[in-house]
């Protein structure tokens, strides 16, 4: 018990009560501006590190669902950068004209045709898709595990990331190697037992239940092992780089 005079008068409190909400309202709709926005992105990189090193498990498998749990195709949204710009999905090249370039920090750079890819060991699973927007959908995907392709080209020890390039208005992105080598990360060529349609990323796309949809690059042309961390179409604009779920 003391008779100390409190440091704030009634008037001070009133001022505080008026100024604080006003400044907060002024801040709304604000991405942080030139000063804070880069700092928020730096914290996002810290969160990527936590997500990659603390949360991610190389062996934990995402739950698989029965075929009956599939989301109706029409309710499973699709988009592409090209479609957003022109209204049309990118046109898949003729089967013989398309190939996937697998290179970068690898001992045996390889050009994989559709036929070669389809002859590699395949996996099929029915899993839940998590979109960064907050919706989910369940679908069945078939393809070759990225780790199988990696074994073919034999990445060098310096390789730490994987970059995916596309013919969708230069959409691209990068993956940490651990997530890319996860047994459920595949190069998919079929959706719900049918060859991929143009809206799903034909002829070949990345699929994995361990990352958000924007990491599941469609319309692939190349897969490159790198030492430097690749950015990404959305990631360069501010979306979290790791995108792991």
């Amino acid at each position, binding site marked *: *018990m*003391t*008779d*100390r005079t*409190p*440091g*704030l008068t009634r008037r001070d*409190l009133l001022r505080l009560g008026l100024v604080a909400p006003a400044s*907060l*309202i002024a*801040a*709304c*709709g*604000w*991405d*942080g501006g030139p000063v804070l*926005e880069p*700092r*928020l*992105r730096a*914290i*996002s990189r810290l*969160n990527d590190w936590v*997500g990659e090193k603390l*949360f*991610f*498990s190389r062996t*934990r498998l*995402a*739950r698989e669902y029965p075929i009956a749990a599939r*989301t*109706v195709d029409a*309710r*499973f*949204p699709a988009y592409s950068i090209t479609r957003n710009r022109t209204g049309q999905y990118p046109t898949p090249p003729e089967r013989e004209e398309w190939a996937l370039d697998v290179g970068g920090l690898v001992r045996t750079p390889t050009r994989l045709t559709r036929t070669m890819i389809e002859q590699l060991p395949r996996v099929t699973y029915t899993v*839940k898709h*998590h*979109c*960064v*927007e*907050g*919706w*989910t*959908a369940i679908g069945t995907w078939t393809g070759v595990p990225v780790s199988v392709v990696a074994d073919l080209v034999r990445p060098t020890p310096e390789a730490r990331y994987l970059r995916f390039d596309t013919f969708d208005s230069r959409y691209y992105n990068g993956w940490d190697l651990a997530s890319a080598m996860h047994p459920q990360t595949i190069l998919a060529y079929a959706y719900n037992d049918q060859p991929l349609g143009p809206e799903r990323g034909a002829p070949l796309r990345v699929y994995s*239940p*361990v990352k958000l949809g924007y990491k599941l690059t469609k319309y692939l042309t190349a897969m490159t092992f790198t030492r430097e961390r690749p950015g990404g179409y*959305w990631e360069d*604009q*501010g*979306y*979290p780089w790791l995108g*792991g*779920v």
Partner: protein
Amino acid sequence: MGFGYYLVPDRRMASARPFVKRHHGLVRVAHWVNAIVLLGMIASGLQIYAAFSHFGPRGTPYPNPFDGKPLPEWSRLGGWLAGGLNWHFALAWPFVITGLVYLGFLALSGEWRSLLFRPRDIAPAVQMQLYYLRLRRTHPPQGKHNALQKGAYTFIVLLGVISVLSGFAIYKPVQLAWLTSLFGGYELARYWHFWAVWIFVGFTLVHVALVFLVDPASLRAMITGWYRGRFPSHD
């Protein structure tokens, strides 16, 4: 006596009372940091909600008065989805750290005894409610907080814990699948996470209203630590 009694400060009585130390500095810092951070968490969360303003599997939405209705732009922080996400995941750090520091302080200092609502608080809570309903004449004796306050403060801490856990459940639904399934799966975890917002908002409105209507001295106590109001501790 009518309700107006509470609105008329009794200056003669007030000046006769000494200041008593009520809140540790750590509690005060935690309270105000949390107030600002929670506001930012809610505003950035509403920005994230605007990207997909539905709950449940696509085509079979859960009941939601805000279905298809993003909250107005002035209530959102981040400008667009990526901005909202970056604010939300950055503010989550001080939100969780402040919460852990606060709970750690309560545990180590023994202060939890005056805040945790326990079964033995049920009867005093009923008496307190009777007093508020004018069915009991005298204010029941209380410690630092009365039983109803204990109930409210225990509840809001629990709500904070549920918000954080349901947040992690929708942040890492595959890596933390066990946690997500505790909430009934991703779609339900996202649903509870959203409802927690409105409980926080409701709590805060009542909390602030009670401070100004019933015990304005408690605001000064939460800023300076010193209390000289109408509800001295009976301990």
